[in-house]
């Protein structure tokens, strides 16, 4: 049975290692600051007892005041999983670091989020529209797109 790790335990580990990176945590997930996303992700992947090597998905939700980007990771070795999130409060030019260097599976999914929501991923090698054509006006999955 895949154990969903408690957000609070992970948050305390992250606070020791990277103070100030955790915004809040609950039983289900950890919310971290976008600036410390890369170092937190690298820590989660490389620490032997966590060893999150399998990238389930990345997705984004448009709550009107902010965009929330949700990641889920699984460790195939220890059979546990974790959900962590980042929030982006900028509506005009939202930008978040990209985790493609760590998990190649994030490649197409981040392009999809850029295409449909407009969130830029800094450090992505090939960030361009994937489903819609160049020159399409607007970002369809945003709540203000008709």
């Amino acid at each position: 049975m895949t154990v969903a790790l408690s957000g609070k335990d992970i948050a305390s580990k992250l606070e020791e290692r990277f103070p100030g990176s955790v915004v809040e945590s609950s039983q289900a997930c950890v919310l971290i600051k976008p600036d410390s996303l890369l170092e937190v992700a690298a820590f989660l992947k490389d620490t032997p007892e966590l060893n999150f090597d399998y990238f389930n998905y990345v997705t984004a939700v448009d709550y009107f005041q902010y965009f929330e980007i949700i990641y889920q990771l699984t460790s195939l070795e220890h059979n546990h999983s974790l959900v962590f999130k980042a929030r982006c409060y900028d509506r005009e030019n939202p930008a978040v670091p990209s985790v493609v260097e760590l998990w190649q599976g994030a490649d197409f999914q981040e392009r999809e989020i850029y295409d449909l929501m407009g969130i830029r991923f800094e450090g992505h090698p090939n960030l361009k529209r994937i489903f819609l054509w160049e020159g399409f006006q607007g970002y369809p999955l945003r709540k203000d797109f008709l």
Partner: protein
Amino acid sequence: MAIETREMALKTEPFVLNFGPVHPSTHGVYRMRTTLDGEVVLDIEPVFGYLHRGIEKLAEQRTFTGFIPLTDRLDYISSMSNNLAYCLAVEKLAGIAVPERAEYIRVIIAEMQRIANHLIAVGSFLNDCGAYFTPFLYMFRERERIVDLFEMVSGQRLLYNYMRIGGVSQDLPDEFLPALRKLLDLMPSYIGEYERLLKDNEILQARARGVGILTQETAVNCGISGPVLRSTGYRWDWRRADPYSIYDRFDFDIPVGVQGDCYDRFRVRIEEMTQSLRIIEQAIKDLPSGPVQADVPHLIRPPVGEAYAHIEAPKGELGFYLVSDDSVAPYRCHVRPTSLINLTALREMVRGWKVADLIIIFGSIDITLGEVDR
């Protein structure tokens, strides 16, 4: 990029060939811009979106129950699995318990769907290998029998809309179980027929052994799941690792490959069909009686929250991420697209192979464009 300099006086240049969206193979509207040096593939650039119908946006305009027909159209070859994944996600979000009979029916239907899907996957893989339509039509003959059973249960041949939140929509009719029994008795002989014709076939061995090798590290790093991951030798199946529904009650093996080439992917799918037959046998024996749907309103309003549920779909890990804000429509519905993520490793797998191998490698991953593009 490095082009080997040759000792002959012949100077070659790379050129770009467009494998357009209209493709003479059954995988759908997928486009690749390939950079070739003669016949050897140097690089590919996949282009998607020719079937992007905006299902995630449409989810926000439909009710939770009204979205089930749209989930059929995602991976349209195995629609029952899509329905199951979505219903599990809503049940997790709303905390609904499913009656026993419905759980068993779901398992039987999901495993039959796995067999039907693998029949098409193997058939079209062999079509790409050059056996043209002969194995494809053989496998279609079996698929027609399975589709007959699905028609008995749901009334539809391809896009079933059968599962509901809290169970299934109708009970199995009386003639279903005898017909299923007859199919289960005949199926091993058909699978034996395919093995006899194809397992040691020289042409298949020459074309598919050692072609398009995927290593375990690349597969795990790219998030690849399903038969493609198992062909690399990693024994990981979500039915065993994170059992959903009642899969922990059944006894089945997980076939794995050896080196992650096209031949291993083909063998893994054939073996999985045999294992699915085992699961169906066990499920039929223990099928209890009772209601087939929990007492759930049609216009269901799950409490505020979010949930992610995944299943081992025939192609890999299919998951639905749902966010609800206490209204009759989902606030956000995201589909974890198995086929799109399985395509991440395609570039590494095809570098250095010839154009004909590119088609086989692409066919052995087994994607459906409805799921890639949504």
